[in-house]
């Protein structure tokens, strides 16, 4: 059996000062007032979550890890990527923690730090954003083909029936719609990319 000290330093043992403020760093980077520091670890979020079974840590556990400064473990967690944004946890949380928005923050932090373990979810978001940045509107067919070809080519044949149905019923456009003032939107987004949320 490993001596107790080893276990300690492997987990939430001595931390660098910047890790001790990890919780506040996340709270700061979240839109709105997140109330993250108010978590009482009651588990309402983990209990409410429809996809908790597929998460490596429940949201509650993730918040405890943020408090413990476990940066690496948090950013590698699949939890934020499994979050379906159903907001059940948000409205039930007795401490009004904006859990879903914290998940968005953790996703963008993981992308920046390149810590996520499965590249599918961030690439899907990135592909979607790419369409929006090009056309100003989403383009379902373009998104589907580009994303599936890169990530799930094997899923395509099985999906063909559905895709064909969507196309023949004209529920998927063959060409993208584009907004008129694309220049304006591009200028806004380019400027926005240079800005960061601080208090």
């Amino acid at each position: 059996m490993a001596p107790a000290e080893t276990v300690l330093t492997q987990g939430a043992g001595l931390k660098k000062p910047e890790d001790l403020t990890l919780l506040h760093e996340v709270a700061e980077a979240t839109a709105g007032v997140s109330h993250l520091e108010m978590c009482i670890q009651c588990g309402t979020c983990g209990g409410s979550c429809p996809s908790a079974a597929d998460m490596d840590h429940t949201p509650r556990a993730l918040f405890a890890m943020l408090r413990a400064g476990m940066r690496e473990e948090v950013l590698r967690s699949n939890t934020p990527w499994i979050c379906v944004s159903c907001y059940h946890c948000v409205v039930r949380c007795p401490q009004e923690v904006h859990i879903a928005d914290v998940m968005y923050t953790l996703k963008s932090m993981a992308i920046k730090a390149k810590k996520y373990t499965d590249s599918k979810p961030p690439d899907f978001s990135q592909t979607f954003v790419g369409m929006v940045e090009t056309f100003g509107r989403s383009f379902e067919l373009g998104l589907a083909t580009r994303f599936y070809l890169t990530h799930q080519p094997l899923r395509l044949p099985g999906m063909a029936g559905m895709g064909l149905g969507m196309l023949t019923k004209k529920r998927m456009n063959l060409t993208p719609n584009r907004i008129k003032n694309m220049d304006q939107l591009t200028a806004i987004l380019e400027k926005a990319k240079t800005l960061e949320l601080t208090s």
Partner: protein
Amino acid sequence: MSEQKPKIGVYVCHCGSNIAGMVDVENVRDWAQETLGKDGVVVSRDYKFMCSSLGQELIEKDIKELGLERVVVAACSPHLHEKTFRTASERAGLNPYLTELVSIREQVSWVHTDKDVATEKSKALVSGAVHRVAYNTELQPLKVPINPNTLVVGGGIAGIQAALEIANAGFHVYLVEREPSIGGHMAQFDKTFPTLDCSACILTPRMVEAGTHPNITLLTWSEVMSVSGYVGNFNVTIKKKARYVNEELCTGCGICVEKCPQKVIDDVYEAGLGYRKVIYTPFAQAVPKYPVLDRPNCTFFKNGKCKACEKFCPTNAIDFTQEDQYLNVEVGNIILATGYDLFDARRVTNYGYGRLPNVFTSLEFERMSNAAGPTGGEITLRDGKTKPETVGIIHCVGSRDKNFNNYCSSICCMQSLKFAHLVKERTGATVYEFYIDMRTPMKAYDEFYQRVLEEGTLFVRGKVAEVTNATHGPHEKGKLIIQVEDTLVGKQRRIPVDMVILSVGMEPRHDAKQVGQMFGISCSSDGWYIERHPKLDPVTTMTEGILIAGCASGPKDIPASVAQGAAAAARVLDKILQKEVELEPIRATVDEAKCSGCRICNNLCPFNAISFLDDLAVTRINPALCQGCGTCVAACPAGAISGTGFSNEQIFAQIEGLLMGV
């Protein structure tokens, strides 16, 4: 300002490090000595604890030896020590109202973070008081006799206890209860934690004693309508609602109840889980024994037919012509023991109460487990027959939740443990308890937790996310599913059960605010009545003569409510035995020469202290009724009203002093 300044002493308190930690006390002392010398300050001292006997002696010695005519003490809030220092001055022969207290703790050191700023602010406040105190005049407190009768509002265990203590000491009590019987929530319970003694067995002897005590006038089915007057001399109007039963003739035989053909759901005593007749006594041991006729549901009052109760009453006690009566009583003190309402579990829609039949509230469960309740003490599902095999008990429903009530209701953990024990005892079912934190801090409480653990109750640490009938597969069919994160395991669990008990929290009475306004006391942001001091003066309020006991000031269990009832009674007896009460001489007076008779002030007085003298066409203020609030002073267009202790000269001088350094 007059040339002849009175001799003033300034005393600055360190309060250990409470003040000295944020205010440069020596600097304030020296500054007062040097700068305020021209304003009459002849001595300025500091001391570690001015409120200690040595500190007080310092002031007394200076008054005697230096001939001080005014004293300014810069220390804590006047709430705490104004009386201490005024009494010290009085001992040295100085009229107590010539001493002023300046708060440099609550208003300075505790709220500032910059020592220089805090020190400057302290100087300004001291300077304001020094300028003001020069204009203080000698005042004599007003003495008024105390009416030895007491009004107790609310006939739950706290109110009963208070009434009995006072009555046993030989003084008269009016005990007012709005329901047909006294007993309150405690009369609805089956067992009491942690000893599991029968609630009725320990409560009913007290109820009977209160009902038969020669010094207690019991007014049930009654409500207080209005209150006027002041400590020692309140005048109260009580509405005695029509019972439609003549109490002189009724023997309490119960034949009318038996013969009444109309049944309605009993939302009060049976918590909606059972029925009662339209003419009813809420329970067998009700005090008084006389039934009440529920007029809105009565067939005779609705259709003009029936009168079954009247036909069968052997003593002709039914009186359909009875009307509400209004009584006026005079009392010296009032104890509010108005209790609590239960949190409405239907508001937590994810727990399904009201939608899913086998979700029950804690009070429903109390009634169900009571041998005199709707199921005769059987624990069953909503069908009234089936015994549950698995039961889930959920803590903190509506409590510790910013969506509902922020506070801990304090009794729910113990109540839930009691339920777990009763379910096991009566049905042998598997019992789960879902808790966030287990709070069992009082005598023998944690031992009870140990006992329930030993009995095999399965504890899950996690706030339940939802109770649902939406299944995830055939294994869950026909069950209620409790979905929760077991936080100690770190996994979501779905636990199928037959019955769910919601341990609902306590809430202030729905009408607590209006009732508080009627008695002149205020509620906290949560809606509970505010004590004069939460630790040191928990049963009195900021209004002299109005006391609070039991859950009116916040969630409490039975022992705490009883203790508060007794404590409030002791405070009242203390007042009664003093025979008279000193009223603060801070009063408004009318300079009749200046009064134009415009009557603007007449309707503004919240204490009804102002009357208009038609013959002289001027307004006069009753000094015993006046509470010195200052409303009329500010309203008078002729400047004819002035408040003792708050004269224009005093206020202007204080402002001048405050701004001196600016």
